[in-house]
């Protein structure tokens, strides 16, 4: 196979850093003409307006949907939480996505947020979603104030069961819109349903991850991935607007972008490696007001829509009509490969608009989409449908991209001639993963990413569920076939905890998630390849019924003022709070839960941030735990600001290690505490801070900051902190005390001067580190090491000249004198401090 490589001059010349404002994916874009060309301004949430970088989604209970008999609102909420968790788990996006609770009325609050609401939708409309309310456009982005996901209020008729994979995938898709993503042609979660190939087991594709990360990038995203940019122009040089350009690597990862009004595209989020690129026209819209691919059209500075261009022949980079002849593009992390330009030929309509593929899971079950092919079988069957597919079947040939898979000449599917049958023969070593198909027509090609997924096992099936008393009273054994150690068992929308896989019987032992007494949950097994037992029985054949018993209830009566953080205690009766599962919500985007600490199955503490704009009044508290959601009516009160104008207000996370500026704190360390009204004028000497009931030693006090030493005798763990500002005591703040939290303030040379460029440390001489955070390890030399450029050295002496301060003395080995500087770190009880980079100088030359 001959493959030519291209090294782009621009890439070699520049290796540009990735700009944050450019949009490689297709977001909701506004274009602005600048001296340097068109500038894309995406709509996105403003991280400065969010608490903890988190956008919260609220589920409206104002108009609860009618549901099918074996379905429930609790099950729906659990699916929503799972769909939100899917986007929250994107590690290269700084945007966190949280569940804000159930709202029994219009969502209150001014902070940016999103709602999932139920509404009467006319026939033909299954759901709606996306940004609905925007703030004033800025130079970098247009802030999203509200997004809405609208689900039919009659799920018994429209939309299906909420525990189904289809409903979950639709939620993931619509939530993606709410976060600022539009459609792509990558077969990903943000692709239209007809071509989407994601599943619950693999809910996001590389394209989705790249799209969200490009909009909300972390430093890691920019450091670990690269980008490709170029243009798509017609032969006469006219730019093609909204052409799809896809980058595919040999592993089958696909990331796409659409061209801007000037024909420029930029694909971001590419892992280093070689990529094949192709440009393909996007299917025209099926709705007024939208552009190709049913994407909202880009707008100019006046808000006028910029129309999309017409169709063209699909082409690989290098003007090739097959991947083998295409030019490869090498991508390097943290760099941009430029000038990957296409020239395309106009045509009236695309060869094919879109193609949907189905496979058959067996057992007489209907076809499923996305499709799967088991490479253990020598031959497999797909059926395909799409506009113009059947009339063109006689002139069509199919090939697989980068896979050793043969597709026989397609023909009409005899049982249903409106479909096309594809006979697929994967080679034994075709590999697992996505299968991308290329439809070759006499005058054009069409590429369908993720047409099927190659797997090595058949569809899982559940037989029955029986109690398993061997591992505890709450364990159940799931019998069936095609299970594996990585299979997951879902109860409605939530996964149970898989305790074991019995390799002899092929059974799974699972602990169901917490659920309401008497609740009936549909049980489904999902395999990591994406196949599930719902393929054969979409409505489930196994129902798990939670034991009958008293209904769980919760109690709380808390209040807070605007612009404060507050710990809200919630107690339960017949509850089973589980750490990591229990979440607490309020009916306002101005009141959000930053953290939940489960103390035991009946008690939890929620750290709640009440925004400055929170309207005084009473708010519902909703507690969602496992499959159960309980709403406590008007249990949280926001007081008017005037009520607390002399009360100290503590900033959540406002206790900071004085040396590291992180939240890691330990007994005895020096720390800074931040908040409002921490000291009232003239009463500074009366200020007291208590931590776990022990009074802290205060170093300095001001209205917004207290520098203190955490008491030596505080036991590590979750403890309460309070401030008395001379007149009023604050609410409780929960603080996690670690065993040690070492931090370095600086280093002193052998003569006592602070090490710096003018006074470097001398190799071979003694020096001293000024540190804090030894915690309960203080004074135990076995637990303390100094790392010099990663080499572990034992201090010669550790002393404490002042409360909370340690001096660590040792000699800098002469070998380090060869370097310009050394990196110094402190390791105490397994915890690593911040690093100090300190200049060094060689020691005195010995006399000859």
């Amino acid at each position, binding site marked *: 196979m001959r493959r030519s490589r291209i090294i782009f001059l621009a890439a070699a010349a520049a290796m540009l850093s990735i700009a944050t404002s450019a949009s490689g994916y297709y977001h*909701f874009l506004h274009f602005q003409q600048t001296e340097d060309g068109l500038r894309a301004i995406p709509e996105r949430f403003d991280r400065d307006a969010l608490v903890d970088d988190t956008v919260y989604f609220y589920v*409206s209970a*104002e*108009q609860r949907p009618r549901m099918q008999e074996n379905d429930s609102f609790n099950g729906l909420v659990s699916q929503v939480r799972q769909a939100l968790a899917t986007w929250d788990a994107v590690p290269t996006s700084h945007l966190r996505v949280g569940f804000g609770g159930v709202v029994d009325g*219009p*969502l209150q609050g001014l902070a940016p947020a999103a*709602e999932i*609401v*139920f*509404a*009467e*939708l*006319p*026939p*033909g*409309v*299954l*759901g*709606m*979603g*996306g940004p*609905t*309310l925007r703030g004033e456009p800025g130079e970098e982005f247009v802030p999203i104030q*509200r997004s*809405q996901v*609208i689900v039919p209020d009659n799920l018994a008729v429209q939309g299906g069961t909420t525990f189904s994979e289809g409903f979950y995938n*639709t939620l993931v*898709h*619509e939530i993606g*819109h709410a976060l600022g993503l*539009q*459609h792509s042609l990558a077969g990903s979660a943000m692709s*239209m*349903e*007809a071509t989407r190939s994601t599943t619950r087991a693999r809910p996001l594709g590389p394209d989705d991850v790249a799209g969200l990360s490009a909009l909300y990038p972390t430093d890691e995203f920019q450091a670990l991935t690269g980008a490709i940019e170029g243009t798509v122009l017609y032969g006469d040089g006219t730019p093609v607007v909204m052409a799809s350009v896809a980058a595919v690597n040999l592993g089958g990862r696909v990331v796409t972008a659409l061209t801007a009004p000037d024909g420029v595209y930029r694909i971001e989020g590419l892992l280093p490696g070689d990529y094949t690129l192709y440009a393909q026209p996007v299917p*025209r*819209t*099926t*709705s*007024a*007001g*939208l552009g190709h691919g*049913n*994407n*909202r059209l880009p707008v100019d500075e006046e808000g006028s829509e910029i129309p999309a261009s*017409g169709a063209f022949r699909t082409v690989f980079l290098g003007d090739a009509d097959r991947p083998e002849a295409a030019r490869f593009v090498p991508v390097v992390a943290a760099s941009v490969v430029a000038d990957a330009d296409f020239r395309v030929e106009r045509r009236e309509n695309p060869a094919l608009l879109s193609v*949907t593929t*189905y496979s058959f899971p067996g057992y007489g079950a*209907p*076809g499923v*989409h996305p499709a799967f092919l088991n490479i253990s079988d020598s031959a497999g069957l797909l*059926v395909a*449908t*799409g*506009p113009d597919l059947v009339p063109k079947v006689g002139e069509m040939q199919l090939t697989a991209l980068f896979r050793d898979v043969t597709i026989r000449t397609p023909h009409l599917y005899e*049982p*249903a001639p409106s*479909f096309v049958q594809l006979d697929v023969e994967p080679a034994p070593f075709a590999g697992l993963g996505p299968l991308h198909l290329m439809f070759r027509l006499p005058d054009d090609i069409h590429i369908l990413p993720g047409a099927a997924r190659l797997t090595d096992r058949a569809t899982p099936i559940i037989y029955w569920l029986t109690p398993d008393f061997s591992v505890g009273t709450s364990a159940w054994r799931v019998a069936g076939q095609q299970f594996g150690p990585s299979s997951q068992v879902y109860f409605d929308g939530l996964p149970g905890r898989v305790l074991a896989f019995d390799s002899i019987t092929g059974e799974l032992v699972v602990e169901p998630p917490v659920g309401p007494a008497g609740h009936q949950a549909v049980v489904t097994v999902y395999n990591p390849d994406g196949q599930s037992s719902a393929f054969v029985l979409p409505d489930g054949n196994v129902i798990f019924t939670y034991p009958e018993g008293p209904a769980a209830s919760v109690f709380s009566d808390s209040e807070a003022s605007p612009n404060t953080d507050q710990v809200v205690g919630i107690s339960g009766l017949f509850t089973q709070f589980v750490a990591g599962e229990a979440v607490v919500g309020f009916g306002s985007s101005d009141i959000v839960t930053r953290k939940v600490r489960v103390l035991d199955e009946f008690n939890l503490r929620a750290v709640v941030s009440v925004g400055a704009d929170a309207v005084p009044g009473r708010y519902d508290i909703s507690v969602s735990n496992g499959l159960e959601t309980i709403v406590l009516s008007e249990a949280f009160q926001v007081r008017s600001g005037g009520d607390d104008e002399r009360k100290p207000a503590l900033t959540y996370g406002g206790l900071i290690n004085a040396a590291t500026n992180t939240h890691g704190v330990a007994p005895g360390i020096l720390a800074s505490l931040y908040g409002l009204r921490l000291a009232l004028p003239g009463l500074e000497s009366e200020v007291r801070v208590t931590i776990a009931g022990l009074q802290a030693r205060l170093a300095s006090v001001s209205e917004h900051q207290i520098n203190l030493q955490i008491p030596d005798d505080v036991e590590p763990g979750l403890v309460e902190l309070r401030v008395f500002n001379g007149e009023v005591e604050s609410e409780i703040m929960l603080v996690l005390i670690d065993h040690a939290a070492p931090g370095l303030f600086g280093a002193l040379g052998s003569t006592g001067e602070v090490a710096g460029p003018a006074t470097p440390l001398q190799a071979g001489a003694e020096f001293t580190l000024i540190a804090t955070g030894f915690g309960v390890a203080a004074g135990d030399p076995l637990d303390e090491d100094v790392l010099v450029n990663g080499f572990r050295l034992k201090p010669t002496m550790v002393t404490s000249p002042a409360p909370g301060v340690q001096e660590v003395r040792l000699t800098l080995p002469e070998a380090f004198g060869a370097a310009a500087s050394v990196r110094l770190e402190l390791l105490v009880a397994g915890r690593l401090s911040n690093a100090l980079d300190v200049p060094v100088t060689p020691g005195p030359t010995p006399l000859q």
Partner: protein
Amino acid sequence: MRFVRYILVLAACTLLSAATLERLTVEEMAQQSTSVVRGQVGEARSARFGALVYTLHRFEVQEQWTGSLIAGLEVAIPGGTYEGLTYRFGGTPELKPGDEYVLFLWTGPSGRTQIVGLSQGVFQVVRQAEGTAVIRNPVGDTVFAGDSDEKAERTVRMPLERLAARVHAAVAEIDD
């Protein structure tokens, strides 16, 4: 045949950036509508129902093709300006005051009247110079299913009478 029904339903769904739609033909829309009317769009106002803001367009019915006559008809379309804030959904149709349309309408249990399939159920009436009327729908070939005079990139036209005939035939099919 269960299989065929199942995959046909799947194939008929399409997701918009703001709406998940089921592709509908003229006949399907006629059969799922509570009324199909021709008329003129009047003034609009906004209102909030539950968590959603709607724009309510007055619609003066000039010809009732199917269903019972609705007095003081207001057509609700998601989105609009309410209490100083503008809520906008991509993909929702825009009705221009004074323009003439054929609308496929559905009145739900709440009493609100909405358009079937959002943009799919909106047909603008264009009066031509020679006096004939054609309707056009920006959605295109799906709803016309090969019965159009023009199949351009985004807009398809057909004579008003032909659309009326298809609607009546579809409704008659149900009545039979």
